[in-house]
């Protein structure tokens, strides 16, 4: 089971992950990214590159399933305006044993951060907005998997 989904509407982590529970494996690992209240932020806006987004997320899932014995892997990413406290991304993997799912989940979210064509703009309570800068620490974490 490999699944990529881009959603304009709110995402429910448990619904996204439900299929992974039934694959016969003993391990399900997941990561959910949530909009943080970083001092005056009331929402973020996510722009993406339709077509390339899906292709790049599928490539990441293919890379993960080539590297680890996975029974399934899924990524759901929200786009558009996302309010503080709402999930932005859900990554989940299932495997027979836990090591594979735990590592593959970290791999997928780390690589997504530097390879998938999404751009985040913070909207502040005072009505202003600002593009978020990429972080050097994200590059460093993604490099661990090369």
């Amino acid at each position, binding site marked *: 089971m490999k699944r990529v989904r881009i959603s304009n509407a709110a995402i429910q982590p448990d619904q996204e992950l439900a299929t992974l529970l039934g694959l016969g494996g003993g391990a399900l690992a997941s990561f959910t*990214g949530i909009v943080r209240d970083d001092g005056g932020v009331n929402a973020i806006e*996510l*722009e*993406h*590159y339709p*077509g*390339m987004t899906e*292709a*790049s997320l599928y490539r990441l899932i293919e890379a993960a399933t080539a590297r680890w014995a996975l029974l399934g892997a899924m990524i759901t*990413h929200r786009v558009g305006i996302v309010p503080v406290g709402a999930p*932005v*991304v859900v990554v989940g993997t299932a495997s027979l044993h836990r090591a594979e799912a735990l590592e593959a989940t970290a791999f997928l*979210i780390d690589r*997504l*951060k*530097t*390879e*998938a*064509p*999404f*751009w*985040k*703009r913070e909207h502040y309570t005072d009505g202003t907005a600002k*593009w*978020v*800068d*990429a972080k050097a620490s994200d590059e460093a974490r993604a490099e661990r998997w090369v």
Partner: protein
Amino acid sequence: MKLVYFASVREAIGLSSEECDVPLDARTVGDLVARISARSEEHACALHDQTRLRFALDHEMVASDALLGAAQELAIFPPVTGG
């Protein structure tokens, strides 16, 4: 070739996409980006520092020295910030 722009690059140029003829002497992504810079003040401002840009040819991330080959779409954008 179709050019597509995203995020701060899109805003700085004021367009989300446009068409361009690839000059014969533009072999790499970097060559073509230098040509596109000459289109307007806005293009020059958005594209002058290639180290702060990222590129994709036909939906695949590439470095600025990648060959254009037969690619049909070049995307130019700032470093990604999803997740």
